C-alpha cells in the first residue's frame, strides 16, 4: 500500500497539479484561441406568405420567418404548441389575417414550451422592442419537467444559439441557464458541435478558477449570424366590424348541437380515445404540483423577465382543460395563481380560459380534452383585437 501511494497516488497528484497549471498558463496565451469565423448572413427578398410555421428545421431560411415577424411591428407573432395545428374556422393566424387584415404569424407545434420560446426570443433580442407577441400557455406543460430536448433542438436552431453566445448584452447568468439545460440533456444530443459545447463548458466549469474565464471568452470564436429581409410582410387592414358576442353564441350552439356525448368533445374523438369497449369512460387526473419546485414555472418566469426588459408588447392566453374528463384540475390553481399574479405585477394582459369546475366550463371551449375549440379561438381573437388593434 505504501508503495502504491508513493509510486502512483503522489505522482498522480503532482501530475494533476502540473497539468492544471500548464493549462492555466496556456489559457493566458493566444495558443488556444482560433480566429473569428466570417459572419453568416441569411437573407431573403421577403418572408414566406404562409401564416403558420410549425417547424424551423426544414431549411435555414425558415428562420427568417421568425425574424421577419418580430421585426414587423404592426402584426402579431404567436407562439403555441399542439393547438396551432387543430382544425377551426377561427384559428387566429387565419381568421385575423383573412377577416380583418391583421397579420399574424404563428410558430410551434406539440412540445414547444416556455424554455424553447424563451431561447428563440433571446436570439432575436434586438428585434423585440415594440413587437406584438402572444403566447398560448397549456396547463399540461406544468405537469412535465420543462421543454424536452428534441423540441429544444428543433426550435432553438444552431444559428439562434450562435447569436445568443455571441451577444455580449445577454447576461452571463442567462447563458449559464442555457448551459445548465444543455448539460443536463447532453447525453441525448447527437453531434452537439462547438456552439452547444460552448454553453455546456460555460456551465460545467463556471466554478473552476481559470477555466471559467477561458470558456466564457470563447464566444469570440463563434460565427456571428445575421438575418435580413428586404421587404416586410404587410397586409391591408380591413375595416370590418365583428359581432363577437353573436359569433360566440353561434359557435357554442353549433358545437353543442354537433356532439352527442356527456363530456363535450368531438364525437369521433370520444369514440376513439375516451369511450372504452364496455361503454365506460377513460378519465384523466391532473398531477399534484409544487409551486416552489416547478421547472416549467421557472422557465415561464425567465420568459416574462425577458419580455419585460425587452420592451415588447406581450399578451398571454391560458388554455383550458376539460373538467368533464379530468379529475383534480384544481391542482393547477396554485400555479395558475402564480402565473396570473406575475402577469398582473408586470401589467401584461392575459386571457384565462382555464376553469377546474364543470359548472363554469363553456362547451366549445375545447374540441377534445385539451385543445382549443371555436369558442376559445373566438375569445382569443376578440382579446387580441381589443388589446392590440383598438388602442
Amino acid at each position: 500500500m505504501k508503495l502504491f501511494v508513493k509510486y502512483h497516488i503522489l505522482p498522480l497528484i503532482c501530475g494533476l497539479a502540473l497539468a492544471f497549471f500548464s493549462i492555466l498558463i496556456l489559457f493566458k496565451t493566444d495558443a488556444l484561441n482560433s480566429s473569428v469565423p466570417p459572419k453568416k448572413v441569411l437573407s431573403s427578398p421577403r418572408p414566406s406568405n404562409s401564416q403558420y410555421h410549425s417547424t424551423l428545421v426544414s431549411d435555414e431560411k425558415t428562420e427568417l420567418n421568425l425574424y421577419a415577424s418580430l421585426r414587423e411591428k404592426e402584426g402579431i407573432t404567436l407562439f403555441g404548441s399542439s393547438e396551432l395545428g387543430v382544425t377551426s374556422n377561427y384559428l387566429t393566424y387565419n381568421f385575423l389575417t383573412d377577416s380583418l387584415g391583421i397579420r399574424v404569424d404563428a410558430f410551434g407545434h406539440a412540445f414547444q414550451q416556455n424554455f424553447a420560446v424563451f431561447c428563440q426570443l433571446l436570439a432575436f433580442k434586438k428585434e423585440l422592442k415594440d413587437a406584438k407577441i402572444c403566447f398560448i400557455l397549456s396547463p399540461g406543460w406544468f405537469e412535465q419537467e420543462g421543454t424536452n430536448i428534441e423540441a429544444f433542438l428543433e426550435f432553438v436552431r444552431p444559428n439562434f444559439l450562435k447569436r445568443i453566445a455571441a451577444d455580449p448584452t445577454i447576461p452571463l447568468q442567462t447563458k449559464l441557464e442555457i448551459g445548465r439545460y444543455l448539460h443536463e440533456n447532453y447525453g441525448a444530443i447527437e453531434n452537439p458541435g462547438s456552439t452547444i459545447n460552448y454553453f455546456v463548458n460555460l456551465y460545467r466549469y463556471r466554478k473552476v478558477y481559470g477555466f471559467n474565464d477561458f470558456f466564457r471568452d470563447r464566444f469570440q470564436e463563434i460565427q456571428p449570424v445575421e438575418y435580413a429581409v428586404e421587404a416586410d410582410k404587410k397586409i391591408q387592414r380591413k375595416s370590418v366590424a365583428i359581432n363577437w358576442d353573436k359569433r360566440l353564441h353561434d359557435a357554442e350552439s353549433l358545437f353543442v348541437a354537433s356532439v352527442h356525448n356527456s363530456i363535450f368533445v368531438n364525437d369521433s374523438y370520444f369514440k376513439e380515445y375516451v369511450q372504452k369497449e364496455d361503454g365506460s369512460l377513460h378519465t384523466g387526473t391532473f398531477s399534484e404540483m409544487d409551486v416552489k419546485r416547478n421547472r416549467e414555472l421557472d422557465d415561464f418566469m425567465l420568459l416574462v423577465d425577458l419580455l419585460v426588459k425587452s420592451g415588447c408588447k406581450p399578451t398571454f392566453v391560458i388554455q383550458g382543460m376539460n373538467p368533464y374528463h379530468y379529475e383534480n384540475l384544481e391542482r393547477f390553481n396554485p400555479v395558475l395563481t402564480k402565473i396570473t399574479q406575475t402577469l398582473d405585477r408586470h401589467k401584461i394582459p392575459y386571457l384565462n380560459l382555464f376553469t377546474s369546475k364543470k359548472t363554469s366550463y363553456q362547451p366549445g371551449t375545447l374540441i377534445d380534452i385539451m385543445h382549443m375549440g371555436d369558442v376559445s379561438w373566438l375569445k382569443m381573437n376578440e382579446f387580441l383585437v381589443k388589446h392590440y388593434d383598438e388602442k
Partner: protein
Amino acid sequence: MKNRILRNIVIYFILITGYLLLYVVDIEHLFYREKEQEVKSTIDFVYQQF
C-alpha cells in the same frame, strides 16, 4: 526509485494534459474547422392526443 516517481509524474502529467486538451478544451477544433453536422436528439418524443 526517484527515477520511477519522476517517470510516473511525467506519464500522469501527459495523460491528464492530453485529456484536458482533447476533451475539455477541445483543441481539435483549432485544427479542423468543423463541418456543420445536424444536431438532433437521440430520443424521439411521441405526442399523445390523449
